[in-house]
Each structure stands twice: as structure tokens, then as C-alpha cells.
């Protein structure tokens, strides 16, 4: 149980850190924050790479590859569109 407990500690503390860091976001940035956070959720790509890289069975490879494609769309598309949006937010 030791390892699982450490993981749980990290999960809870990171959630609290997230709450603290984002709590005061102005409405102007709601969409960019959401799509930027969305891109970060593509972190599943790490898992997909690990799984696919070491796959020695067909189904593992198929699922892992599907995971890489989906996560990469999420990561690349998410960060790019957020940047495109933020480029438009200007003060004059």
C-alpha cells in the first residue's frame, strides 16, 4: 500500500495546488484557461507512449497507438488553438 498512498498524497496536493492557482481567473480568460487545461489533460500521451513502446501483444499495441493518436490531437491542437486565441486578446 505504500506506493498507492504516495500517489494519493500527490493527487490530493496537486488538486489543492490547482485550486489555489486558478481560483481568481477573470471571465475574459475562461475559454483560454479551459482549452489550455484541456491540452494539459493530453498528458495521457505519456502513458500511451510507455504502453505502446513496450507492447509485445497486438491488442496492447492497437490500443496504445489509438491512445497516442488521440492524446497527440488533444495536446497539439489544444496548445495551438489556445495560443491562437490568446493572440487575439489585446488591450488597446
Amino acid at each position, binding site marked *: 500500500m505504500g506506493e498507492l498512498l504516495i500517489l494519493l498524497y500527490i493527487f490530493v496536493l496537486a488538486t489543492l495546488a490547482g*485550486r489555489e492557482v486558478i481560483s481568481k481567473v477573470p471571465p475574459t480568460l475562461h475559454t483560454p484557461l479551459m482549452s489550455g487545461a484541456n491540452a494539459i489533460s493530453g498528458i495521457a500521451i505519456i502513458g500511451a507512449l510507455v504502453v505502446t513502446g513496450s507492447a509485445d501483444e497486438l491488442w496492447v499495441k492497437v490500443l496504445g497507438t489509438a491512445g497516442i493518436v488521440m492524446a497527440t490531437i488533444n495536446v497539439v491542437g489544444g496548445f495551438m*488553438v489556445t495560443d491562437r486565441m490568446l493572440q487575439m486578446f489585446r488591450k488597446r
Partner: protein
Amino acid sequence: MENTITQIVYLISAVLFVSGIKQLSSPATARKGNARASLAMLLAIVVTLLDNQILDWTTVAAAVVAGAAIGGVLARYIQMTAMPQLVAIFNGFGGGASAAVAAAEFVRAGAGGQSPGVDVGVTIVLSTLIGAVTFSGSLIAFGKLQGIVTGKPVTFPLQKSFNALLFLLTLLVGASLAHAAVGDSVAPLVGMSGPEISGPFFLALVVAALILGVLLVIPIGGADMPVVVSLLNSYSGIAAATTGFVLNNYILIIAGSLVGAAGLILTQLMCKAMNRSLGNVAFGAFGTEGPTAKVKAGQRPVRDVDAEQAAMVLAYAGSVAVVPGYGLAVAQAQHELKKVCDLLEDRGVTVRFGVHPVAGRMPGHMNVLLAEADVSYDKLLDLDDINAEFDTTDVVLIVGANDVVNPAARDPESVIAGMPILDVDKARTVIVMKRSLSPGFAGIDNDLFYMDNTLMFFGDAKDQMTELVREVREA
């Protein structure tokens, strides 16, 4: 997770994620924040590739290139008005990726001939469940926003009971997979022995989770979409975090829970802006209550104006507040609106924008539209700030908004009672640009339209706005 260098790079990446998100919450630093977060992602990916024995580089590289190409093209060419559905579909892919990884881990554990420990079993089941719900739920949300699936709430008899039953069934199947003892006692019910159930039960879990995702989103109507989109955003983060538990990977847990927290905060903000609880949004199927909600419009007299008259009122005002709503996004009239505002400002009129938190189909939807039309963000005031100014505002121009300016919210009897609204009726004159008198999403009539100081300017927002540009120029 043994390699120390990899762990240290993951730590650096985690710090960059946190500080990047922090920067994303201030307009001046937001772009840098996004760049920092993408650097964090890149670092994590590179070190993962170096640390792990990649047996099949071709497959990995091909998958990354394909994903990057699809994502890049979507991000580059999507119209800003289609932003809500893009966010929804990206969300779905994030959730789908987490589910796929969990499923691959399940297959691999089975292939090794040994059942995974309870802790791994539970995390695999959870991660598959949350990921699959996020995936199918986001696809439905995408369909609704894109207009492929009806935007109206879809309900059927005993929906809640069915959902509850399905959820319980999913938990039972999940428990059978995660714990051999549960599996052994459930298996005979379907005529199998304990170890035999793993394949079919896992498939059943995936299918049930996918159906659950559809059923959770389908009863939710268009105007409640900001809540759903932010909630699904939160789910995709939690799905990634649970996948981190499966793989014992710290960076997945940290990045995933950051996203989970961000999504939850936005969800709470959206619920507060509608004065409704999350449960009410998820299970309420608002606006379908039938006869009581359907008020016949058009039986009371209204004052309507044409473009020329509206232009006169606007051009000779000292201050104008614009209140945009979903109708502006549908008509794609943001550029014409900006032209009208520029012309007014050239004449010395003070122009500002009052943006309701839930206007549109996702959090901050109006802000993105106006930013695209080149409106400076310091002219966009939020609810409290603009409400303090309506007393001294000459003209309010409402473009495609309805429920968020309905004074009925102050009436404790109303279905939208207590919802924070923009107090536009306090301004000297109100011009409402709208296609017809039809009620908004809440299905109730809007008293604002019948007030003495309200002028109705009927028509398609884009056509009328184009007319308005010409008339204001000549005024």
C-alpha cells in the same frame, strides 16, 4: 519509474505546468503561460521516449505525426465561432486516450497470466470508466454544439432510474474485475467461472461506460452547455490522473489533477452564474416542464424600430453598453458589431460591453468572439462591474441575449428566480436586437421586451448590424 534523471525532468515539468497555469489566469501573461505549459509537455514526452525501451519506433512516430497533423489542422483552421465544439471534441480525445491506455494495461496484465492486484485492478477500472464516459459524453456535447444532435434536452420515461441502474451495474462489473473474490461470486450468475469473466466483463464495462456518457449529456439543453463543457474538461483531467495511478506515473497524476481542479472551479462558477446546483443542471432537464413554461409571446404591445431609428438613438447617446448573447455567435455578427462600436466611439460615445458569465455555449464564449473582432478586453465588464453602471448608461444594445437580461429573475416565483442577471432595465433606453419575441432557453416570456423604455429591433443580427453600420455612419 526508477530512472532518477527521468524523475527530475518530470519534476521540472510539473513545476512548469503549475506556473504555466498560474500565468494563464492573468491576461498579461496568459500567452507565456500557455507556451510554458506546452514546453512542460514537450519535456515530459521527450524524457519518456528516451527513458523507455521503444521497441517499435515506426508505429510510435507514425501515431504522433498523425495526431499532430490532425490536431494542428483543426487548431489552425477552425472558426472562432466553432470554439465550443472544438474544445468538446479535444476533451473527448483526452478522455479516450486515458481509457485506451487503461484498456491496454488491462490486456497486458491478463496476458501475463496473473490477475493484477486489487489496487491496480481498481485503478484500471476507474480510469477506463471515467475515460470512456468523458469520451462519449464529449462526443454528444460536440454533436449538440455542432447541431448534429438536437440542442434540446432529450428525455425518456424513468431516465434517472435507468441511469442509476446502469451506473450500479457498471460498478458491479468493475468490482468483479478489480477483485477476484467479487468476480468469483458474480461469475456463476452469468454461467462462467471467475477467471473467464475478465474479457467479456471488461468489454461490458467499456460499453456500459460509453452508454453512461451519452445518457449523462443527452438530457442537457443548449444553454446549460457551459456547465457541461467545463465538467467534461474536469473529467478528462481526472481520467488522466487515474491513468497515472495505473502506471505509477507522478507527472500524469499531477497534470491530470491540475486539469481536474481547473474544470471543477469553472463548473462551480458557471453554476453560480445560473443560481443552480450541479445536480439540478445534470438531472433537471431545464425548460421541458411543458405547458407552464410555454408562454404565448406577442400578445402584449411592443415598440419596434428600424435600423435608421436605432442608429439615431445610438448615435446621439453619451454612453452605450452592449450586451452580447448566444444569438451574436449564431449570426456571426461580431465584426459588424465592432464596426458599429467604432463608429460610435468616433462620434465620442462611450462604448462598453457587459458580459454575463454563462452567455454563449462555453465559459468565456463572448469574450473570445469579441476578442476575435478586435475588441480591447478592458472594455469588457463582468456582471458586477457593468451592473453598477446601468443607472448612468443612456442606451443598452442587447444582441441575441434573453434569459440573462430577464427581470423575472428578481421574482421569487419564476423558474429562473435568483439567477444573477444584467440589470439592463435600469438604463434610460434599451434596444433589443432579436429575431422574434420567442422565449429564450428557460422558456419564459421576457418582461423587458414590453417595457416603455425598450425598443425592439427585429431581424437577423448580422443583416441588422450591417444596416446599422450604414445608418450610424450617416447619422
